[in-house]
């Protein structure tokens, strides 16, 4: 299961500080009458790398999509970097410009070149001068190791390359928190590795990360905390070693036996 990660992870920069990055308190969400998220309590310190696991339909994607308000919660409180998420559009835009998000299906803008994909938000949201935005974009394209693709269109890139571009696009906004919504689920096995490598590098630089993923190798190598969700609630959370080797709840044991069993 961990064959995708075959390098040593440098933990020197991975430090969890006392500062609170995200605070979620007694948060509930319904889709119509269906109670998707039930009484979620979660505090994320700056510098944490959290992996959220769980069966499909357990609400893990919905949870991280609530953090930048792609989904609206109906009760409880979400505070991101000191800004509470309410229906106030100014707050929402402020949070969104500081929280990066990477999607399962990349969601690059197909009508723009890679470079334009990367510079769009800095230019229009941050009002960065174009030249500066392009320099930043090339820097991050270099970091995800595809600077030579800058003038191509997303449709010309492989899935793994597209996902790395999507990560670079988020980074161009200089976010303080990154959310990953199953970033490798739509990729071929050989491409999963290149995306995970990029994510590991990001973690090594001390980025606060919340990842919904099925890559348990990544969780063991990088995460400082694993959260297991089922039926819209947090069932168990622990540090990775304890979580995998000594799960407390029956539901977690069943889940782990299913995904690690073969």
């Amino acid at each position, binding site marked *: 299961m961990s064959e995708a990660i075959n390098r040593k992870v440098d933990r020197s920069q991975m430090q969890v500080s006392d500062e609170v990055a995200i605070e979620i308190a007694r948060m509930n969400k319904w889709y119509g009458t269906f109670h998707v998220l039930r009484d979620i309590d979660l505090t994320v310190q700056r510098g944490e790398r959290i992996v959220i696991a769980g069966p499909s339909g357990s609400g893990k994607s919905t949870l991280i999509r609530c953090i930048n308000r792609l989904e609206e919660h109906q009760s409880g409180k979400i505070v991101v970097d000191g800004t509470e998420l309410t229906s106030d559009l100014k707050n929402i*835009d402020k949070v969104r*410009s500081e*929280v990066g998000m990477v999607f399962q299906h990349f969601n690059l803008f197909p*009508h723009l070149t890679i470079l334009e994909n990367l510079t*769009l938000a800095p230019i229009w*949201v941050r009002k960065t001068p174009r030249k500066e935005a392009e320099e930043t974009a090339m820097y991050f394209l270099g970091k995800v190791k595809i600077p030579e693709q800058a003038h191509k*269109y997303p449709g010309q890139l492989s899935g793994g390359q597209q996902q790395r571009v999507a990560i670079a*696009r988020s980074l161009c906004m200089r976010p303080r928190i990154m959310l990953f919504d199953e970033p490798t689920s739509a990729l071929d096995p050989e491409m999963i590795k290149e995306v995970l490598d990029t994510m590991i590098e990001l973690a090594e630089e001390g980025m606060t990360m919340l990842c919904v993923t099925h890559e348990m190798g990544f969780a063991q190598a990088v995460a400082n905390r694993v959260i297991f969700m089922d039926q819209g609630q947090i069932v168990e959370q622990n540090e990775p070693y304890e979580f995998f080797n000594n799960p407390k709840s029956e539901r977690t044991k069943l889940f782990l036996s299913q995904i690690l069993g073969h």
Partner: protein
Amino acid sequence: MTESSIAFARTEMLPQQEPPLSERGIVKWLHENLFSGWMNSILTLLGLLSVFLIVKRALPWLLYGVWDANSLAECREAVAAMAGPDAHGACWAMIRERWHQFLFGFYPMDQYWRPVLAFALMIVALAPVLYYGLRRINMLMVGIVGVLMVLALIGVGTDAAHLLVAVGVFAAIFAVAAAAPTKLVWVTILFPAVGFFLLWGGSVWGPIGALAGFAIFGAVWSLLQKKLGVVVAAGVGLVVAAMWWLVVQTKVTTVLHEFLPAGLPSVDSDQFGGFLLAFVIGVTAIAASLPLGILLALGRRSDMLLVKTLSVGFIEFIRGVPLITMLFVASLLLQYFLPPQTNFDLILRVIILVTLFASAYIAEVIRGGLAALPRGQYEAADALGLDYWQAQRLIIMPQALKISIPGIVSSFIGLFKDTTLVALVGLADPLQGITKIVRADINWKGIYWEPLIFVGVIFFIVCFSMSRYSMYLERKLKRDHR
């Protein structure tokens, strides 16, 4: 199974070979396209036969066409003298004599330079829209249109002074196209007022006043946009601009006109006709219905209940009513709803209702394009912190409009052809209005095919160009290299 029976290793690679004779060149093409079975062979032969029969009937008619005659009777004599008493021949002489009516209606002859210049400027105004920022093609367009315009101006017998003015205008535009092609947009922005002034004439202050209204709208909008949000600011701006247009403008322009009387002889709307009328209505309605259609499509998908209900109601109402009803509303009813002094021109009223009609259809076409976009595009735009209008303008609309191009252009072509329906409210459209007038002349009584063919060919050229342009645009915007 033993291993030896399946083991195989190629020692040399096979070179490429020519395909057999039946699989290449004309033989293959004929076989695949015309004679791929006995049924298709019969259909091919039947098709050839019917083409032959049509050509056999039509060709002599076209070949014996007469250009030099003063009446239908003279035409027939000329044909009879040329090819015997039973022969038929086209009487193009009618077009030679009446072409100006087909093109300009009853526009005063000594003022023909105005519609010609306006038409040439219209094409130049389209250049930056169609080929934004492409220096070479813009220069080429301005140059070719300029030359054609000079020829047309000489053709309609323009006096030297006005010819010089037109050439001067084009020289200036050409210089702009060469120096800064993106600045050509200003021609586009100013064209509605310039075109209106050229076509209808009157005091120069009228169009300037109308433009000032837009400037007022822009100023109010940009002042309030930060504080009140885009939509509310636009609403306030619109109210202020409407106050200017309806209350203040005429007073200001009258005073200005007294100080500095400048303008062109005014031409009444009932003097408009032919393709001049078709283009005035068609082009204005096309240009105005696209932005309106975009707003309606966005309104229909909006979360705001009032906006959504109004958009849906508008679209469904307009689509549920025949265009002819709308035209009658324009010619008869609309006047009742406006303040008593406003003397709203009939052509203007028709343009407004044709625009509303077209925008409902455009809105639905664009909604189709919006629905085809994956949700992820909206989410990615949101997650990056783009606000609603930025996301629409930069991410959603470019893609949705690209998907909708075939549908939008179909609507435009339909709209352009529908301009002939204005015959029903008494305007002289090229197809029915002008043809009827021509036939009312005792000399041309009984002429049917020739005006229809002439008008049809011009409509075809215009519509076919639109269709080809849309295909060019689709190819140019193709980005998914899969």
